């Protein structure tokens, strides 16, 4: 379909590659593989392993998620210049939707393995690309929260309102925490673990303690060490639970990454122990060119993608409940 020069020319027009110079774009262009599919063909199926990102040059693709009852919900229609499946470069999950070609579509496939090669070679292109991917994912997460808020207008769940911020927080120590069994921490050497612990503050949060509030400026991120916390979306005077975060999970990263106010509130749903980092401390940790920095970045990105996937699940369930309620009322316009 095209040579490197032509691909680079196309990439220059994409927001994803904003800030990359021609030499960096050539590094990426040498890695991508052209694809071409006809109408009714799929680029990937829901449930497939996520192995890479598609960049559409021409054509039209519909993103559809299956829902119970053998129906499909159309999530988006994408065309020239759009990306799909880009979160595959950030984690190793499975596709949450099917990409169905509507009109003949051509473009480029960029595999996660290719991206990893660029990163291992410390190519500057990989750093810029990673930054853009994270920005894109942050936008997608906030858009997903907005979609859930829309759906909640029609189906308010029962829930609780947060207590006063920070009630119950107390200093804690690291005794009894089996760091070697927890995600992220298990990859650190004793010396690296010590450095990470010294960069943060160990806190005890009793059940119901609010870690941060929706709409407030972001000051800290938290890694759960024991117990669990939940993120919640405010809906009127109630809250809708987005996700429950187990030991090893990191929360508060969306606002820390995009600098905007917290999109959700977060409370301890069990008596918990957390490691809190000031945003600046986390940025210092992530920016330091050491293995812990790489592990932390991976952990942050995976956490972000997990929330994105969870939002897709909620949207599907709320849509389903809306259909069932409409059927109960005898309506046919959903």
């Amino acid at each position, binding site marked *: 379909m095209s040579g490197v020069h032509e691909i680079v020319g196309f990439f220059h027009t994409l927001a994803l590659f904003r800030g990359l110079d021609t030499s960096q774009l050539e590094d990426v262009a040498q890695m991508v593989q052209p694809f071409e599919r006809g109408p009714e063909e799929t680029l990937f199926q*829901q*449930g497939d392993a996520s192995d890479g990102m598609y960049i559409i040059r021409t054509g039209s693709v519909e993103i559809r998620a*299956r*829902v*119970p*009852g*053998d*129906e499909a919900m159309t999530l988006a229609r994408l065309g020239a210049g759009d990306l799909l499946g880009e979160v595959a470069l950030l984690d190793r999950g499975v596709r949450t939707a099917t990409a169905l070609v509507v009109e003949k579509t051509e473009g480029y496939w960029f595999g996660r393995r290719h991206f990893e090669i660029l990163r291992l070679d410390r190519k500057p292109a990989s750093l810029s690309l990673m930054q853009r991917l994270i920005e894109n994912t942050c936008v997608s997460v906030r858009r997903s929260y907005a979609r859930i808020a829309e759906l909640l207008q029609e*189906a308010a*769940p*029962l*829930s*609780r309102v947060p207590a006063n911020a920070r009630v119950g927080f107390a200093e804690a120590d690291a005794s009894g925490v*089996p760091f070697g*069994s*927890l*995600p992220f921490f298990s990859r650190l050497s004793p010396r690296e673990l010590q450095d990470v612990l010294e960069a943060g503050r160990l806190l005890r949060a009793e059940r119901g303690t609010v870690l941060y509030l929706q709409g407030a400026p972001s000051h800290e991120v938290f890694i*759960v060490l*024991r*117990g*669990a916390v*939940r993120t919640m979306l405010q809906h009127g005077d109630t809250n809708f*639970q987005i996700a*429950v975060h*187990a*030991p*090893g999970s990191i929360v508060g990263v969306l606002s820390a990454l995009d600098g905007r106010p917290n999109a959700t509130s977060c409370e301890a*749903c*069990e*008596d*918990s122990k957390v490691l809190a980092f000031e945003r600046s401390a986390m940025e210092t940790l992530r920016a330091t060119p050491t293995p812990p920095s790489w592990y932390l970045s991976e952990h942050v990105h995976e956490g972000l993608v997990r929330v994105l996937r969870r939002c897709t*699940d*909620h949207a*599907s*369930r709320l849509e*389903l*409940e809306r*259909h*069932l*309620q*409409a*059927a*109960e009322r005898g309506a*046919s316009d*959903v």
Partner: protein
Amino acid sequence: MCRVLAYLGSPIPLENLLYKPDSSLLKQAYQPQMHHMLNLAGFGMMAWDPASHVPEVPYRYATTELPIFDANLRNLSAKLRPRCALAHVRGVPYHERVHVSQQNLHPFHYEGTSLALAHNGDLEQFDMYKFALAEHVRPEIRAKIRGSTDSEWIYALLLSQLEDPGARPSPDEIVRALDAALAVLRKVRHQEGAARSSSTNLFVSDGSMLVATRFTYDFGCYGDSVHEGHLRYSSQWFTVGRDYDFHDGEWKMIGGAANADSILVASEPLTVDTSTWLEVPEYSALCATLDDGKLTMRTVELTA
């Protein structure tokens, strides 16, 4: 850790739930997809078949044998077409202190009551506070406890929270009673110093509706070591539609949500492909009823 399924809807061949799908309930006894323990301590089932004699009275089948080798169950499941079923394969820790017996098989159902209950989970440190629960269980219910499981005590607690355990409660009353029973358990656990992750996924039915909770106490709280249950919330999934069968090369319901007349709730999907299933949210209950053949379903967050 057990595996459970609950079905409510139009009559369905029982074998479509227990045997035929690629990850059917009985296959989950020896090859579950979503946890690592085998479920070898027996099988129990209650099924409400509208074509049977006295259809409101469920058929009960329970065996401490491995159900996959049970020819009677295989033959029976090809004949029965229940509109509601509650089935359970029991998983227990691998040691000699566990009692594998008929009395400990789920679902639990006391004579004179309408509700049956199956449990997927395990109350860690249960012996620490088992007898402290007694004061919260009505004496007439307490007298019926026969087995040694934490699950039967939860059932007894649930019945004790109902205004009239002999009546047929509405789904809302069941959710309130479940929430109250879970709150009693949380309080007693706290008083007695039990604070380890304990999953309490419950499946409750009277043959005309079902309520399923996805709930874990002290999730993420571990003792001397961390295991799977501390890092992953015990799973529970559901699917809705019509005619759960092998359609277009896969096991699924068809007909769309707006025309749904059936629901299937399970510890894990009955197929390796999970794309037609959704997860029940954590700390929540799913309630389903049938009204003139139409399914109604909602999820509510528990406050316990």
